[in-house]
């Protein structure tokens, strides 16, 4: 059974990779089966985790009747399938949007704005404000300067109330360079990630399936 599974997995892996040559029926078959299985897997997982484990067992075994509120909202969401009363689905949607927005505002403001701003406002040549002026190592000092200059010039680049000319233009140019270097680093990491996926599949083909790797 395990060998059969390996052959099936190899068939689908090669089928998907065959797209690199060109679009073909083998690829189409593999893609369609993948989409179908993914949809089925999600449906089954969410049914057993949400409807059965959380809702049904929550009410029947743990007596948590507040779950009915969520269940009713869920049913209201499904009413969009009936065009005449589809407008009712907007209510649970409004609840979800409101609750999520409320949570996100707090989370993002605290973690991505306040903490990051606080961390950007650091002394250039010291490890902390209560440390002597030149206590930081050269490496850390350079890092602090890069952060300060990069943040400031990056903000200048997005400041459109004044024309980007002269001193302002120079700062904006440094800002765009900073942003481009960031994108470059991000792209480099993305290439690394995609290569890792290919390495994983090739390890499966040549290792697990063909058993050619020591």
């Amino acid at each position, binding site marked *: 059974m395990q060998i059969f599974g390996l052959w099936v997995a*190899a068939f689908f892996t*090669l089928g998907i990779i*065959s797209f*690199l*040559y*060109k679009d*073909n029926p*083998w690829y189409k078959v593999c893609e369609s089966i993948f989409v179908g299985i993914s949809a089925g*897997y*999600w449906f089954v*997982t*969410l049914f057993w*985790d*949400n409807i059965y*484990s*959380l809702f049904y*067992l*929550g009410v029947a075994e*743990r007596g948590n009747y507040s779950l009915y509120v969520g269940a009713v909202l869920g049913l209201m969401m499904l009413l969009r399938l009936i065009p005449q009363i589809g407008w009712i689905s907007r209510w649970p949607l409004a609840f979800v949007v409101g609750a999520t927005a409320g*949570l996100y505002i707090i*989370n*993002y403001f*605290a*973690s*991505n704005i306040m*903490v*990051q701003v*606080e*961390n950007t406002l650091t002394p250039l040549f010291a490890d902390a404000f209560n440390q002597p002026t030149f206590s930081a190592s050269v490496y850390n000092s350079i890092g602090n300067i890069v*952060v300060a200059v990069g943040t400031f010039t990056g903000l200048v680049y997005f400041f459109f109330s004044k024309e980007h000319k002269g001193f302002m233009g120079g700062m904006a140019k440094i800002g765009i360079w900073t942003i481009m270097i*960031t994108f470059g*680093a*991000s792209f480099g*990491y*993305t*290439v*690394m*990630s995609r*290569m*890792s*996926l*290919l*390495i*994983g*599949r*090739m*390890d499966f083909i*040549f*290792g697990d*399936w*063909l*058993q*050619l*790797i*020591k």
Partner: protein
Amino acid sequence: MKRDMLIYSAILIIALLLYFAVPKPIAFSPTVSYIVIVLIAVALIYIFIRTIQGKYVGRRIVFLFVGIAVVLPFFMTVTQPIRLSPEVKMVYDAIMKLKPGSKVLASFDYDPPSAPELQPMAETFFRLCIERDLKVIIMGLWPQGPQQAEMALRKTMTFPEAASKNYKYGVDYVNLGFQTGNEFVIQRMGSDFKSMFPNDYYGTPYDSLPLVRNVKNFSNIDYSFNLSAGYPGTVEWVQVAVDRYGLQMGTGNTAVQATSMYPYLRAGQLIGLLGGLNGAAEFEKACNKLGKGTKFMVSQSFSHVIVIAFIIIGNAAFFLGEKKKREKE
């Protein structure tokens, strides 16, 4: 159509030959490995010269070279030196500082497509935890995360030093399974783990598991390690568990999102970061437990060299094309 069928038949025949006829396993000697490297380099120089002459290569040639660069190192005996970065050492140090018996929460927020990068991290993490006698509580915000954890544990248990520890389910580690709800799950866990995981991965009631019976919320967790491939993942853990509830957390990320984690690392919201396959290899080195991360790094570096070479070739083609256009005008 006829040509396509011929190509597919050739792939099938090659695969069958490799499966049945080729002696296994294949391993190149160092001399053969270096000859292969030189041959690839010569081929790249040849393509570069042809490009300068105005004869461009098709995209399939690029794919072929990347494929060769990824596959051939599997059979080579060459190794690559791995340098330990501070962010990886932070994860290692944080785990090493924990006393035996400390409770570690491990959230597996990824699925099989990200396994080549994150699975080696998971295996090394488990090996280190078992070695240090740490108690591991596994969970997942992605449906297939807990399954990945099970696979990593099974692999870990094949190592004699891990198998000899007699790591027991329910006492030394538990798998709470997947729970839907993304960051709302983390939010609820801040007040009560059990409300989100009434039963574990195998259906055992939460209170029947000795390890987690007295674990109410994050205040009972000594360290947390998150393996993340996207949403929900490290960002949500930082925003809710770290910043609100003060959880100490290290993370292993796919390379795609590793760059966006550095601000959290610098701000001290994360205690360590393993970024992509490179991070996995460094973590293996830090723990002195070499595995697939280290092995894959040679393929990774080879493919990067090929990509850089084709970026240079592509740029040469672009600028030559521009020059020719100007000459025509």
